[in-house]
């Protein structure tokens, strides 16, 4: 067995172990922060170094290829960025900080296993491990009521979604007698017209729709984003979404594009998700709730790319994962800096941000324009790729509805930008004192968002190769 190709996961596991021991040592949150940055930095380097690794582990239940490694790099970068904005971490009690880092790394480990899993049981175990770490992370919010009620909602909806998913996987296994994806991919196209196969696939996808916050499973998202600490919400909206996109791509690839039923099912969910997400976001006052509804809408856009089940569609979905990671993280970077005390933040509290901290206002504006899909940001490129992939497959109506939604979403993103740029700051609100290095981080992110938006070719080529490894 070649352990070198497993090194990003081993780095993550080692980090989790270090924090398990630190949680039993005397409390020192400065030490935890520095150790976390160092160790997750090492993990990012390990994943980037092993991006071209290939192989199979654990009796063929775990595949390492360019597809999984690209996603692992994104996941670890997401983890690293979330750790970087945890220097204050005022939303979580001091004595729980080591546990916070431990659960974050365990969750990332589980998500990495999720993108590499090619056996339905491995897939299920990885999904549960990541969900359970997130449930506890949501509960950790300081001030009992908020964290507990949103954590409870998260847990109950998650438990029912994973039960649905198990039922779907059982049907799938019953109908095909196969649990390995490489066998399933050969068997399924031949039996796709049997009801139990379609039903099994649809129900199995439900477990991932829950994590992705797609329409019938989206009810937890606004409450959890609002009730969880900012850093945890940032993690849920970036890293966990990225991993789910990977799994949905793998599951959709199983059908080989042979089922119109499944495509229709996904298309309906995509349309409802983006419409519900965008229309509800308009009415939101709390910035994190607004971001949650925008996540639901973006889940809809990604589904449009996934349901193409073509190399272009897969490429666009992977690129959109990177897009969501960068843009959502930038929004949460600003949330964390403006609400450094760890309290929730109303949109009105952004008033006059361009006076209080020009770089944060610029970052917020770029990220929101990106989410709305305005050129020259990465968000425009991502949406363009998804819509061209769908047009090539002839889903004109779907693209038209998505376009309408983009226009609706522009309205509420502009409301936030207006608050940051056009309103005067409230009395007594001085200059923002962000954490050290936040300005540099924000500048780097803005540069990355614009640079990849203008010149995506090198990254796109890597992603195209990754999408090829999927098939």
């Amino acid at each position, binding site marked *: 067995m070649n352990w070198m190709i497993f090194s990003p996961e081993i780095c993550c596991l080692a980090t989790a*172990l270090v924090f*398990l021991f630190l*949680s*039993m040592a005397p409390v020192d949150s400065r030490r935890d922060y520095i150790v976390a940055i160092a160790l997750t930095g090492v993990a990012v380097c390990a994943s980037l170094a092993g991006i071209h690794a290939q192989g199979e582990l654990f009796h063929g239940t775990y595949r390492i290829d360019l597809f999984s490694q690209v996603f692992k790099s994104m996941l670890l970068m997401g983890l690293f960025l979330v750790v970087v904005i945890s220097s204050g971490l005022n939303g979580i009690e001091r004595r729980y900080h080591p546990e916070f880092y431990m659960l974050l790394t365990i969750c990332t480990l589980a998500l990495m296993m999720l993108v590499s899993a090619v056996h339905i049981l491995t897939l299920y175990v990885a999904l549960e491990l990541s969900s359970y770490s997130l449930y506890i992370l949501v509960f950790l919010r300081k001030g009992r009521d908020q964290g507990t009620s949103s954590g409870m909602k998260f847990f109950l909806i998650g438990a029912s979604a994973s039960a649905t998913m198990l039922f779907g996987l059982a049907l799938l*296994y*019953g*109908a*095909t*007698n*196969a649990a390995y994806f490489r*066998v399933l991919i*050969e*068997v399924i196209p031949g*039996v796709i017209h*049997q*009801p*139990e196969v379609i*039903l099994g696939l649809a129900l199995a996808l439900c477990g991932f729709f829950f994590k992705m916050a797609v329409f019938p499973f989206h009810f937890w998202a606004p409450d959890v984003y609002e009730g969880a600490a900012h850093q945890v919400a940032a993690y849920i909206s970036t890293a966990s979404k990225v991993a789910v996109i990977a799994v949905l791509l793998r599951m959709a690839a199983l059908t080989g594009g042979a089922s119109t039923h499944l495509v229709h099912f996904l298309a309906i969910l995509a349309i409802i998700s983006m419409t519900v997400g965008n229309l509800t976001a308009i009415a939101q006052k709390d910035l994190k709730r607004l971001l949650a509804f925008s996540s639901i809408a973006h889940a809809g856009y990604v589904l449009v790319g996934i349901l193409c089940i073509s190399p272009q569609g897969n490429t666009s979905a992977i690129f959109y994962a990177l897009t969501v990671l960068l843009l959502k993280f930038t929004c949460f970077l600003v949330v964390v800096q403006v609400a450094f005390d760890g309290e929730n933040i109303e949109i009105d509290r952004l008033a006059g941000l361009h006076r209080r901290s020009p770089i944060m206002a610029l970052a917020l504006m770029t990220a929101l324009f990106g989410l709305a899909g305005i050129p020259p940001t990465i968000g425009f490129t991502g949406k363009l790729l998804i819509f061209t992939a769908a047009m090539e497959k002839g889903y004109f109506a779907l693209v038209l509805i998505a376009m309408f939604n983009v226009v609706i979403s522009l309205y509420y993103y502009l409301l936030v930008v207006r608050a940051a740029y056009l309103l005067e700051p409230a009395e007594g609100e001085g200059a923002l004192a962000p954490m050290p290095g936040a300005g540099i981080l924000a500048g780097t992110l803005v540069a990355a968002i614009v640079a990849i938006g203008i010149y995506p070719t090198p990254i796109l080529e890597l992603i195209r190769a990754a999408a090829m490894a999927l098939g």
Partner: protein
Amino acid sequence: MEPILRSELLTPWEPGIFSLVLFAAVVLVLVGFLLFISAWLGEKSPNPDKLRPYESGIIPTGSARLRYPVPFFLVAIFFLIFDVEGAYIFSWAVACERIGWAGWMQMSFFIAVLLLGLVYIWQKGGLEWGPKKD
């Protein structure tokens, strides 16, 4: 690959779906009709004696919201966690010779993780019982 289940598990989409839809519609209409008719025709004369929780006539005492000591809950959870591990260890023990040293390594890893968990709850005071020592 032979499917385990033949297609008889679920009926094909059509025309089988029609009878299901018809049946569902009949069920919904019937249930709705029964609920409506009993609410419309039924005699309603509530009085305190009728509204008591126990129909036998026993008068309830005290509050329904009992405060239960948390240690019981903790012990139940810990028991659950460390009991489930038994299921894995027994099944490993049965196949111990056949899966060899690789299986032994995996089981050792599993047990090491569980022991770490035990150390953690011990250190955090999860096993303390009774009043807190200061």
